[in-house]
């Protein structure tokens, strides 16, 4: 006879202890690089290659990154790069939502010949490593005259974010009972209004979650801005690595400081919509 368990009661077994230890180990392993980066960002130039945990911390690096000296070292204005990143990413997310939400709705509601192929095709841009598609893109961008422009960056980042939005939101729309919209149709609402007033509000958590994920993916993208921009549309990710000094001296401490600054916007965004995020990422949470 198996022992009766009360709900919420946790039984301590050898297995659960092992599991706890392994989860702990995983946390240490995954969070350690972040800790290391934080320490590095607080070290001065002399300490930057040391591996000691004991040193006199300084905030000088953050100031440097945001000041003229930082710009002199890298020939990039970090604040400007931040702003460019925000514009690029917001642009890409907006395009993805405006086009992707109706696309996800259509894909979730109707099956037609080739609909699955179409969904799959949307991912095809992500099949190859970015470095493989970058050469033709470089040529195309130069020919079209959108090299080193924000429009060009929005366009290429949208290729990354759109499939994400469509695939996540499709499963949301599939989880919604079509009878909700059908009831609205019978009440005399048009197809469009049934979509806008019935279906759309119910997938708001999904929209928030997929938009945030899309933003993070776009924000962290490195290869596209590295090759497809020069100075006018340079992003944070590219600006950060300039401190590694192409040929000149490498400033690891400045790199770390810049990277931390660059991680702030997605972090702030994630914390703001955390409430949506938890609900949003547990699929099927919108059922009545």
């Amino acid at each position, binding site marked *: 006879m198996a022992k009766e368990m009360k709900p919420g009661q946790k039984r301590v077994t050898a297995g659960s202890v092992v599991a706890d230890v392994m989860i702990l180990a995983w946390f240490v392993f995954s969070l350690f690089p972040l800790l290391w980066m934080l320490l590095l960002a607080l070290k001065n130039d002399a300490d930057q290659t040391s591996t000691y945990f004991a040193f006199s911390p300084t905030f000088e690096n953050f100031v440097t990154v945001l000041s003229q000296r930082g710009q002199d070292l890298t020939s990039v204005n970090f604040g400007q790069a931040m702003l460019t990143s925000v514009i690029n990413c917001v642009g890409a997310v907006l395009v993805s939502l405006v086009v992707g939400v109706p696309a996800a709705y259509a894909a979730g509601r109707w099956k037609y010949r080739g609909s699955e192929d179409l969904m799959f095709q949307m991912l095809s841009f992500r099949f190859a490593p970015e470095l493989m598609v970058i050469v033709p893109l470089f040529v195309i961008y130069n020919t079209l005259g959108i090299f080193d422009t924000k429009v060009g960056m929005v366009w290429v980042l949208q290729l990354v974010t759109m499939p994400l939005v469509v695939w996540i939101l499709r499963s949301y729309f599939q989880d919604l009972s079509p009878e909700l919209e059908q009831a609205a*149709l*019978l009440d005399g609402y048009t197809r469009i209004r049934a979509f806008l007033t019935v279906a759309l509000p119910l997938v708001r958590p999904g929209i928030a979650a997929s938009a945030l994920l899309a933003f993070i993916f776009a924000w962290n993208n490195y290869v596209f801005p590295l090759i497809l921009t020069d100075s006018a549309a340079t992003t944070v990710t590219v600006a950060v690595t300039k401190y590694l000094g192409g040929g000149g001296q490498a400033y690891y401490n400045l790199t770390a400081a810049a990277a931390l600054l660059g991680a702030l916007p997605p972090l702030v965004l994630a914390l703001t919509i955390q409430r949506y995020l938890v609900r949003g990422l547990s699929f099927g949470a919108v059922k009545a």
Partner: protein
Amino acid sequence: MTTTTTATTTAKSLVLRELHKNYVARGRESFHAVKGIDLDIRPGELVALLGPSGCGKTTTLRMIAGLETVTSGDIRIGDRSIADLPPGRRDIGVGFESYALYPPLNVRENLAYGLKARGAKDADARVRAMAERLEMTELLDLRPAALSSGQKQRVALARALIRNPPVLLLDEPLSHLDAAQRQRVRRELKVLQREFGYTTIVITHDQLEALSLADRLAVMDAGVIQQFGTADEIFDDPANLFVADFVGEPKINLLEGVVDEDGTVRVGRDGRLRSSARSTRPGQSVTVGLRPQDSHLAAEGEPSVPAEVVVFEDLLEFGLGTVRVEGLDSSIVVQTPADVRWRRGDVVRLAAPPQRVYLFDPEGGARVR
């Protein structure tokens, strides 16, 4: 209180003519879900569309509601053809199986939602009147998530009725309710339908539901209406093997038989049953349908089937005996009166009234009359 808000609608007939639905997918075999349905539903009548899942009953309902296009055929409410109208202009109320209540809105807003689409100015008054009529005023400020399934069903019904449509379609209205609620809602539904006079179609796979609710039943299978009639007609005079097998609880016994020289049907090694069927010929193979309720112990000289009792279940109001017949693969279930007790190993001689011994063609299941 205004008088218009609860005005009973003038009942209208609902007619389906040669209704077809063919799902065509290029490169794939098309699926003929509904194969030419004819149905004449009288004004104010409640008809149950009864059939197993996949029989085309829901497709039929969706075509009437306008949620599915009609491949061919016509749908008429009164003298108006609605087959080509969008759902919002058909004037049909639908109670969905999932209730389709809008989660972010409370009951009051849910009910008013449909009225607002049409710009009704008296929406509030009509919501209140409908809530009073269905005795659910205390639910008006609750969200659907806070309602029990019985209450949800009631709100869904109110939502379907509030526009006062002449035709009401209910898709499996009782399927999510427990046994006690089911009985209560069934009664309420019937009273309401009588009172309001809506011409109503109820979709169900549950024969008890169909029998208790409907004035007439349309038994459907494989996209075709197999039989349309009152419960008695369908139970006492099944049109074919499917109907006989699908309707009736406990299930009808289906036995292999051969027509004898004297017109009786040989069943098993020594059994014989007399049927009222006239069009049989000697030597013909038939499937014999014998309802558990219809067999009795044979009188002296009456054609009968000798059988041995295998199991006897005493169910208080009646008993159920399972008996084995020599030379027959399947056993027979017999319903006995409450005061009859059989024991395992008893030998009984079964007979049935000739008009209750149904014969079917083993090929295709057509009734042999």
